């Protein structure tokens, strides 16, 4: 029972109404998965308007607590099932990632269901792209690491062995229980406990990777010189980096695509104007100009939002769009030469529609490739700024600041402070580059090592940070 007679004209909704079975089954699974984490979403949304509402959630620290204390007999109290904090924390991390993997797999299933039951065409070029990506091991490596990084950023509050608020922002308002030397249950503020858990580069003043401090707290990445838990710091820092990276790439990608379409469609004077503007911005040394802007605008109201994260994202977007625009300008000009664009013009189609429907889809792939590659550069740039003490202001965690803090401990027992953030940056940036490579080979198998290499190199370099 079709609503319209011509099956080609039916919208997705109508096609689903025709055969609701598979879609409903998929939706039921999706709702179930969402229900497990609904509490976190509700908490986040209500948190925007006041104190967040607490609901039981599968992946919360309340359900699988890892903070407890050890009795003199060696039994752990208040932790999940009486397990040691390390194991409890490990279970929570594993659960978070299992949940994320299941969700992703379910989304993929959703796409397959759509492909099988609801898509009108049996085959589209996109199927081939996905097949090529499936055989691209290097791109998959990138995708896996990027996935792990994104999940780390998304689930940062649940992943850390403790919370940012407890250990970094307000350590003297929270307490931990522990048994002191006399075998008595004692109570001490987190701030004081942190003083006893400092990593200062000497063997007796160090809490290294995967170690407990003397208050029975587990530190997967060790502690900072101030005794604060470093994994919590890193997870929260991943969130800041990802936020800045995604927002600035989104904005500059949008500007770049609009300009590329406009200049390719109208050419002439519009093109010249954008070329000169873009060249001027690109002739400013990016990192230095970003520094200048972040110092100049440091006292404005916009720098107060998200500890300067929003400002940095805007600065990186404003200075980064010409690089992306350069990368998609060529493809956009090629598309503009095609016959179907001419046909659309003489058909009397509005320019905006022509650009949106007939040109944009072709440059989107390239945009994705270069965005993925520049994202790594932005992450490095942001870390470099916070290394110098600019950009994201303390106490909001940022990876570059950890490198700065640990500078003098690199060759001591507290080597982890500088080393781990650096390794993570290398991994994440390599992964974004690999993902970009994979997408490029998937959308355009002939392009391997084509002309785009030059701008690609600039995009991936992070402006020298």
């Amino acid at each position, binding site marked *: 029972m079709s609503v319209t007679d011509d099956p080609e004209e039916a919208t997705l909704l109508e096609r689903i109404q025709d055969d609701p079975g598979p879609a409903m089954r998929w939706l039921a699974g999706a709702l179930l998965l969402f229900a497990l984490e609904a509490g976190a979403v509700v908490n986040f949304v209500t948190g925007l308007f006041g104190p967040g509402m607490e609901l039981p959630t599968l992946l919360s620290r309340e359900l699988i607590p890892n903070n407890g204390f050890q009795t003199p007999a060696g039994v752990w109290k208040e932790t999940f099932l009486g397990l040691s904090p390390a194991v409890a924390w490990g279970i929570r991390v594993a659960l978070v990632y299992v949940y994320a993997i299941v969700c992703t797999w379910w989304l993929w299933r959703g796409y397959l269901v759509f492909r099988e039951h609801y898509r009108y065409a049996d085959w589209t070029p996109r199927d081939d792209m996905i097949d090529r990506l499936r055989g691209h091991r290097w791109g998959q490596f990138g995708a896996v690491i990027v996935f792990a990084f994104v999940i780390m950023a998304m689930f940062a509050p649940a992943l850390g062995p403790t919370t940012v608020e407890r250990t970094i922002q307000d350590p003297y308002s929270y307490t931990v229980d522990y048994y002191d030397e006399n075998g008595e249950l004692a109570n001490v503020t987190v701030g004081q406990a942190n003083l006893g858990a400092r990593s200062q580069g000497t063997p007796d003043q160090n809490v290294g990777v995967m170690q407990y401090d003397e208050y029975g707290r587990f530190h997967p990445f060790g502690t900072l010189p101030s005794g604060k838990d470093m994994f919590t710091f890193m997870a929260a820092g991943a969130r800041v980096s990802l936020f800045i990276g995604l927002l600035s790439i989104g904005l500059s990608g949008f500007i770049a695509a609009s300009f590329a379409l406009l200049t390719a469609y109208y050419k002439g004077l519009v093109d010249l104007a954008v070329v000169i503007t873009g060249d001027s911005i690109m002739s400013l040394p990016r*990192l230095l100009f970003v520094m200048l802007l972040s110092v*100049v605008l440091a006292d404005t109201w916009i720098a107060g939002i998200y500890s300067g994260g929003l400002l940095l994202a805007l600065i990186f977007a404003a200075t980064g769009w010409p690089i992306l625009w350069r990368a998609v300008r060529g493809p956009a000009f090629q598309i503009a030469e095609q016959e179907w664009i001419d046909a659309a013009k003489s058909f009397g189609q509005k320019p905006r529609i022509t650009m949106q429907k007939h040109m944009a889809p072709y440059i989107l792939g390239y945009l994705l490739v270069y965005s993925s590659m520049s994202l790594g550069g932005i992450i*490095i740039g942001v870390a*470099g700024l916070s290394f*110098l003490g600019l950009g994201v202001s303390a106490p909001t965690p940022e990876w570059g600041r950890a490198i700065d803090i640990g*500078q003098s401990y690199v060759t001591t027992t507290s080597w982890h402070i500088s080393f781990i953030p650096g390794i993570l940056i290398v991994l994440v940036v390599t992964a974004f*580059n690999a993902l970009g490579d994979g997408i490029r080979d998937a959308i355009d198998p002939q392009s391997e090592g084509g002309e785009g290499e*030059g701008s690609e*190199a600039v995009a991936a370099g992070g402006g*020298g940070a």
Partner: protein
Amino acid sequence: MSRWQYFGKRLLLSVPVLVFGASITFLVIRAGPLDPVSAIIGPQGDPQAYNRIREQLGLNEPLWRQYIDYMVDLFTFQLGESWVVQPERDVYSLLASYAPRTIWLGFWSVLIAVFIGIPLGFYAGLNPNTFSDYLASFGGIVWRAMPNFWLAVILMSVLSQSQSLFGFSWQNWLYETNVTGPPPLPGDLVTLLTSPDHFFPALKKIAPAAIVLGSASMGNEMRIGRTAVLETVNSNFIETAKAKGVPPRSLVWKHIFRNALIPLVPIITGEAFLLIGGSVLVETVFNISGIGYLFFQGIQNGDMPLVGSLMFVFILLVVVINIVQDLLYTIIDPRVGYDGGA
């Protein structure tokens, strides 16, 4: 279009870029909330002195007036004087004392990157899909993704502790130098280049910083060198040369090597961007008081003329390098069209 017409067009197009770049800089430093006066007199300065200094510096003039003065000064190369970092010192004399260290650093970072990155990339491209190719390619990719400042921190710490870590003292090796600090450059270039006692300590001192600063470009050169060689090896004219019986040695050197160099030109010139930007971080870590360090000081202290003039110098440098790159391109590869892109 002849080569000279093309050159003229390129020059003409760079003028608006320069003007626009300088204007953006003006907008940021003068129209923004940057306040050099309170940096000069400190937070407790009295309002009268504040206003007097503002008047003296010409900050009470209308903005368009300041803009015209600023642009005229820059384009007649009157770079002015520093206000805060080193008060009343000419920017030219500041440049003369800070720039040599940065130039020395940049020179070696380009050279080291070129002489390690390109041969490795070519080697990998000539032996594709072998273990050493994978090792070199993977190394290049990871090397490229490393943040300069982190590499600098690690290298600096390891080198200063090399005695206790490896039983080999970097500080006392060949010449006695500290790991950090500016390189010991003599007053004039001739002494530096002719006397080994000056040349080698200065080189040894700058080497770690230069390796760090060149790291990203080195990875790029390697990757692109590899793909360029692979592409050239598989092209038709190499097949023809092989069929004609050209000996392998001359095939590699004369036909493959020279053609594979072409796509590397923009990468090498593009290093200039990375060097200018990266110099701030590397110079800060290694405590080399060069241009990047000076610029950073200028920004932090709100030293408007210093920052503006340095920015202008950087823009000029980038524009000139871009023109040189395009010219080089047309000379090396005559197939590159003169009217392709602005």
